[in-house]
């Protein structure tokens, strides 16, 4: 009998404690944990891995190809073969890269291409809103990935530099 009564009391005690916890958490914190996306965009870390992009240092490297020399190491490093690089066969041509395409439908945003590049020409952008209506738009060519010119200082802080 005493066992039953004590179990009864213990049950009600745990229930009351549970309720006090929920009400305390519910009304003590002024801020909810929800981020009201898309009205508030999240604060991304510096090393955030979005879609890859080619570095174009404003005023320094070529406008058309960034620092890329067309060596093709990024294509070799990619686990899913989503990068295709074609070097210009003509040694005298101004542009070294004939074509550079990244197929974002296959890319798993792992960052191995960034580590492999000897010129530090590749960087993971902070671009995560990649949704399109037509799938062909996800095949990025050189022009697309050179969209954003960045400063020299920012170019120096790629992941492969730090390791």
């Amino acid at each position, binding site marked *: 009998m005493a066992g039953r009564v004590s179990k009864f009391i213990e049950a009600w005690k745990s229930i009351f404690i549970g309720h006090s916890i929920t009400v305390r958490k519910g009304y003590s914190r002024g801020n909810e944990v929800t981020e009201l996306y898309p009205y508030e965009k999240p604060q991304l870390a510096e090393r955030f891995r979005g879609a890859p992009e080619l570095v174009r240092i404003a005023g320094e490297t070529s406008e058309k190809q960034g620092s890329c020399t067309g060596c093709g190491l990024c294509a070799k490093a990619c686990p899913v073969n989503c990068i295709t690089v074609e070097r210009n066969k003509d040694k005298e041509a101004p542009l070294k890269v004939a074509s550079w395409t990244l197929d974002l439908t296959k890319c798993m945003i792992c*960052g191995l291409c960034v580590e492999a590049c000897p010129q530090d020409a590749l960087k993971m952008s902070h671009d995560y809103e990649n949704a399109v209506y037509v799938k062909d738009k996800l095949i990025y060519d050189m022009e697309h990935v050179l969209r954003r010119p960045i400063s020299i200082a920012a170019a120096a802080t790629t992941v492969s530099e*730090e390791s």
Partner: protein
Amino acid sequence: MSKLEEVKTIEASLDNLDVEFGANGEAGASEGDIRSEELAINFGPQHPSAHGVFRAIFHVDGEVITRIEPKIGYLHRCFEKIAENRTYTQFIPYTDRMDYVSSMLNNWAYVLTVEKLAGIEVPERAEYIRVIVGELQRIASHLVFLTTAGVETGATTPYMYYFDEREQILNLYERVCGARLTYNYMRIGGVSADLPEGWLEETKVFLKRLEKTMNETDRLLLGNYIFKKRMTGMVRFEAEDALKWGITGPSLRAAGVPYDVRKVDPYSVYPRFDFDVCVRHNCDNYDRAAIRSDEVRQSMRIIEQAIEQIPDGPVKAEGIPKAFKPEAGEAYGHVEASRGDLGFYIVSDGTTKPYRVKIQGPSFGNLQALPAMAEGSYFGDVILAFGTLDTVFGEVDR
């Protein structure tokens, strides 16, 4: 037959029943007795409480389960075959996607085995970093488990409290490697990048916050009378049976067997840390759930010690060529993943691509034991027991 004829046939068969009454007036069994059939219920791949894509056929007699036939393979992605066509470094992102809830530990198991195969020594700072992120990952994975244990029993509020903490862990990971779920952080010979500035202090602050939340929310969920009543004493699975069926990890330690790879076969710098192996002795649902909360606390201890002891230095071993070619041979390496004993067996033939990678996922072994555990228990309890086994189907099917 039309519905009317069906009903008439059933009525006719009921009229033909002849139930004899025994000497004390109870209804005895005889020929023409009332037939009771087992019901075969399909617990389909789409179900709100299947932890991933899992199909099983439950043979139920009333409310009691007589047999379970699990049918897996819905998440098979041929990782082991893919590994034969990728270089060693290229396979690391694939290991993330096996047990996607705790990716760092999968990475670690794989690079550990490759380092064993090629005889590479990892610098100290890299080992400490691996321990810190690995234990944080264990905490994150156990938070997911505690959440789902609550949601299965109907307590949907602890979900948000635990996931708030997990968000902080994922933010820390984002600062380190840029990703929040599939990290691709560890490399052969170390980690891919050093910790950013101020990360260790942030982690210390986070640990204090985590302790407070764990104490509070554990009282809300694990200390709740209704939760205890639901889970204590149900679906007991003794230690000998557990060992026979190949269960590892927290589910085994809840049965009283202190098997933890970090103590039994230590790897990395674990011998330098002072922590206990959590063991509980009633092998029921509640213990399997509560032991993970104990493990979170032990992981916090390890992280605190690691943060104090971490030295400076390089984070990647020197002299590893980009075209990494280990010598021909084989190696087996295992770590204590958050679900159990995760092992990799790699056979190399001297080229840049492995010859064979065999992965032993702990959830596969744990899932095997489900039919044996569930025989004779109630349907609802078996669903909960399946939840406490904490299977992730990425690991089961690979």
